[in-house]
């Protein structure tokens, strides 16, 4: 039995705006086991980054977790005081971000930034932290680590900066790593290297990884389990094989169809029509219905419940009701 690391239950994150409080994450539940990579997939603005920031409690000032629970290593994070949370951040749970250019502080050396978590959480001296920092840079595949320690982020390439970010995140050997689109800002060859690196380090440290991405290629490469989000809701969750071979939600199918296929010259890229609704748009029924070609009257009026496809696979879509009804009818008639 896999060891449970993180358990998010019915998470609701709201933002105070000029239009009142708007929900960016609407009742999302999922869990991450030790040594497992869970991918959160969806379009930009679907709430995947906000979900990960909610776990770390690093929401912008106007954001707050208004409902639900986040249990990490048995502790409830949503009720924790800031100073207790701070002891976990960068220590037991760490995060890397999309833009390595802006995520590193431009006016401090790489060394300063990598020593910081070691000094805070591991109480290492300046010299010990420096030595450990060099070791970490070496571990993430940075050449001339001694020299890099005294360099600034603008003196490094994009891939190198992301490696530095990873080294900082892994400094205290966290149990959970949240990677928010870590390869989006990098070019393709570097992307593969960074993904491999995260994967290797995951094996080495036995971490759980949450990978936020909109790239189905990344999902196929690294995920054990995938959670698809749309407009703040989890619409489908499955193990990676099941999701790619047997996607259930029309949105998931759309996402998979919108991946270019280089092997097939005649492959037509299918885009999902329409755009993601704004946070302040009021939508009744299924939040995807106005972009869904299969939408029925029920989809327009009632919010779909969660259907189980198999042990590892759940989906929120009314079409399931019809399918499962048909299947049970078929089994019933075949039994007769």
């Amino acid at each position, binding site marked *: 039995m896999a060891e449970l690391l993180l358990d998010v239950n019915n998470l609701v994150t709201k933002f105070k705006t000029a239009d009142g409080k708007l929900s960016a994450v609407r009742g999302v539940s999922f869990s991450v086991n030790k040594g497992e990579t869970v991918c959160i997939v969806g379009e930009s603005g679907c709430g995947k980054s906000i979900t990960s920031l909610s776990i770390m409690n690093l929401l912008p000032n106007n954001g707050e977790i208004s409902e639900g629970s986040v249990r990490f290593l048995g502790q409830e994070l949503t009720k924790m005081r800031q100073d207790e949370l701070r002891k*976990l951040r*960068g220590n037991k749970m760490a995060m890397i971000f999309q833009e390595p250019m802006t995520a590193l502080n431009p006016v401090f050396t790489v060394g300063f*930034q990598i020593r910081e978590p070691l000094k805070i959480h591991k109480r290492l001296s300046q010299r010990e932290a420096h030595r450990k920092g060099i070791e970490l840079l070496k571990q993430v595949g940075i050449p001339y680590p001694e020299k890099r320690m005294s360099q600034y982020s603008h003196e490094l390439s994009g891939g190198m900066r992301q490696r530095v970010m990873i080294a900082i995140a892994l400094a205290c050997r966290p149990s959970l790593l949240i990677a928010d689109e870590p390869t989006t800002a990098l070019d393709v060859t570097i992307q593969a290297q960074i993904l491999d690196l995260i994967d290797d380090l995951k094996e080495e440290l036995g971490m759980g990884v949450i990978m936020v991405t909109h790239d189905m290629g990344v999902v196929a490469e690294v995920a054990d389990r995938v959670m698809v989000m749309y407009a703040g809701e989890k619409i489908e969750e499955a193990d990676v094989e099941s999701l790619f071979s047997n996607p259930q939600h029309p949105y998931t199918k759309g996402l998979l169809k919108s991946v270019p296929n280089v092997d097939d010259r005649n492959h037509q890229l299918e885009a999902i029509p329409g755009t993601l609704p704004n946070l302040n748009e009021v939508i009744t029924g299924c939040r995807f219905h106005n972009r869904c070609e299969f939408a029925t009257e029920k989809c327009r009026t009632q919010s779909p419940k969660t259907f189980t496809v198999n042990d590892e696979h759940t989906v929120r879509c009314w079409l399931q009701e019809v399918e499962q009804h048909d299947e049970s009818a078929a089994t019933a008639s075949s039994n007769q």
Partner: protein
Amino acid sequence: MVGLIIRRMLQLVVLLIGISFIVFMSMHLSPGDPASIIGGPTATESDIEAIRNNLGLNDPVLVQYANYMTGVVQGDLGFSYQTKQSVSEAIITRFPNTLNLAIASMIVAVVIGVTAGIISALKQNSWIDVSSTVVSLAGISIPNFWLGTVLILVFSVGLQWLPVGGLSEPFWTIEGMKQLILPAITLGTGSAAMIARMSRSTMLEVIRADFVRTARAKGVKEKTVIWVHALRNAMIPVITVIGLNFGFLLGGTIITEQVFAINGVGRLMIEAIAARDFPMVQGSVLLVAALFVLVNLIVDLIYSVIDPRISYD
């Protein structure tokens, strides 16, 4: 770095020549005759003519300018028409007072400005932020001479806590500091307000930056996040404003020295302008201009210390 300093020094020379020309011409083109002021109300037309000849005021203006510049290049700023004192000497004796006042005002401006700006940014839209904005706008709008007079009325005449004026004691003594407080506040308020506005807006931008979030994600204490990670980044544009404000401060000393009866270069300049004392006016203006350029050079050098992305090599 050395290249930058040399380049700036050469620019300074060109700048000073330009400024001296403009000041020289505007003094000579404006109405008012130094000779008749020196001669006094009883002087006859021939007396005045003699004085004019004596001072070389009858030469063509460009010749006068050339003569003046020949002296300046040799370090001779000429003699005051009014007191016959050497201009350099007069400026050197008065300059420490002006410098003390300017530095004290700058300290007031930076300490109040940066602190108010940061607190406003951290407590955006709170009552502290709103009142700091109102006070800042008032600070920018209130003229120096009025603020100075009100401060004197309240703290010197009314409460009798601080002296009315003068800057006779050295600044490191208690008395000297007491003498500096009101003039420094008078002169520094406008700059404090501008620095506060600038600090607030850059800080607001920086505390939303990704690297601040990274620092929090590393488990850095909130105090360190603000005062180490954010502040150093926020200070880069603020330093520019501080440098530029030093120019306004030097200009402001003219009025503040007058209000507080401080014998500085500013007051020297006013007296010289009133007396059409051309050499004295030119000498003081050149000093102020050179100082302004030097301060901004220092600002540029500070940039490269604060921000490693800026390098002059």
